[in-house]
């Protein structure tokens, strides 16, 4: 699903966010990406969504070489990936419901389907009661759940979650993880970026650890050890 070969990302001549990173994630895998702040995790995510271009190396997603993807093909790529951003990236001028449905509408999904799918997904993340609120009227955890709902709504083949449990209490975090697990069981590849030791340790899934832009360990049934 994801193949990186010798990927380096240099922001400024002196900031090397990723250094010669190679990794392969198979279709349907559930992978944790862990590492200290500034290790380059979010940079990796931005490369996968073509928000940034690699300085060198090649990247492919779902068999599609996106290393030098054309600008007009970028929307197509993003519609196949769901991303929960670290800073949520919700549209302030749209309600919860509209934020979620927007991801479907940009794909050209018929309105009839939008009307049925959106409430279902909002129910999954427990926000059906707050569908008509604006992001500013929600708590941080609730905003995060909106972001998750939006990332799921178009049934992406790849779901990337950058710190999706960061602002949540243990119980809510567990619910979110259960949701993501279920999504993964349905065949969606999951890349889960987190600092949360407990989550990583209890799940016993593949764990990729990064430090200063490099992969320092990649274990199939790993633990959070940094």
């Amino acid at each position, binding site marked *: 699903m994801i193949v990186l070969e010798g990927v380096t990302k240099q922001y400024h001549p002196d900031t090397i966010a990723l250094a010669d990173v190679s990794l392969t994630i198979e279709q349907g895998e559930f992978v944790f990406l862990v590492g200290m702040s500034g290790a380059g995790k979010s940079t990796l995510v931005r490369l996968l969504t073509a928000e940034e271009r690699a300085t060198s190396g090649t990247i492919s997603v779902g068999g599609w070489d996106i290393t030098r993807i054309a600008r*007009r093909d970028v929307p197509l790529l993003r519609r196949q990936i769901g991303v929960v*951003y670290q800073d949520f990236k919700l549209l*302030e*001028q*749209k309600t919860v419901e*509209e934020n979620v449905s927007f*991801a479907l509408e*940009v794909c050209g999904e018929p309105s009839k389907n939008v009307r049925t799918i959106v409430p279902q997904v909002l129910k999954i993340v427990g926000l059906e009661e707050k569908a008509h609120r604006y992001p500013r009227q929600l708590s941080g955890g609730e905003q995060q759940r909106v972001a998750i709902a939006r990332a799921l709504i*178009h049934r992406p083949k790849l779901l990337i979650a950058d710190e999706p449990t960061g602002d949540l209490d243990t119980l809510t975090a567990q619910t979110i993880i259960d949701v993501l697990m279920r999504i993964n069981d349905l065949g969606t590849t999951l890349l889960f970026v987190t600092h949360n030791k407990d989550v990583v340790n209890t799940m016993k899934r593949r764990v990729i650890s990064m430090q200063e832009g490099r992969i320092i360990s990649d274990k199939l049934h790993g633990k959070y050890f940094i």
Partner: protein
Amino acid sequence: MITSFNRIIRFSFQNFWRNAWLSFVTISILTLTLLSVNFFVALNALFDYSLLTIEEKVNITVHFQQTAQENNVKAFLASLSAMPDVASTEVRTKEEALEKFRTTFKGDQHIQESLQELENNPLPSSVIIRAKEIQRYDSILAFINDPRYQGIIERQTFVDRTKFIERLQELKINARRIGAGVTIFFALIAALIVVNTIRMTIFTRRREVGIMKLVGATNRFIRAPLFLEGIWYSIASVLLTILIVFPLISTFQPYLNHLFENSPFDMLAYFSDNFGIIFGSQFAAIVLLNTLASFIAIGRYLKV
């Protein structure tokens, strides 16, 4: 296709209402700009009209001699009309002159009585000549003063007004030049204001634009609602301008009436008659500037 069209329209309205404050500010600035543009339009019209009224007052009246042969007069009139400098000739026969005289002094018993006693009509026939342009009176005068015609012409009334005409001409040319300069300068400032207003509007949306891109929206899907929103701004500001301009003119019309005593300038009629041109071109200009400005402004934020 229709679905996405509907969505684009819906989004544009949502943007418009949910950014009510921003929309209000944008429309206010656009309206203020348009109002000053229209003030300028009115000023221009007024100026043109005053030049025209002054020009219209200028003419040459040639009075023919009582003894003049009709053939000769006809020949004179024919060559006169054929002159490229002449805009119009208005012939007044002796009878018409008398009739005019009569009606002018309708109330004066004394004059009416003396007219009754007359055996012959003492009034000469005449022709009123208007030139196409003010500076062409010179050549017409030269033509009239040709010795050939002195036998039929008693006198002409164009007493040395050349100085005045020259001045007027100069004023007109200068005024046009200054007017054109000011208009261009003003249009540039107005355009700059519109462009920057739209840029500001887009700038406040840059985060939103970036997020839409990250969710997988195409550039067109982001541009189209913003473009439509610009159209709503344009419609609103032009409508608002119309709603302000007409009552304002009505208020000031009495003052205009004082300005030109004999033939008052009807500003309201001017704006109504040229409604399509005036407001249509303003709308077109605003939409054009809007499109250009937003196209350039969004471009930067679409590169996510």
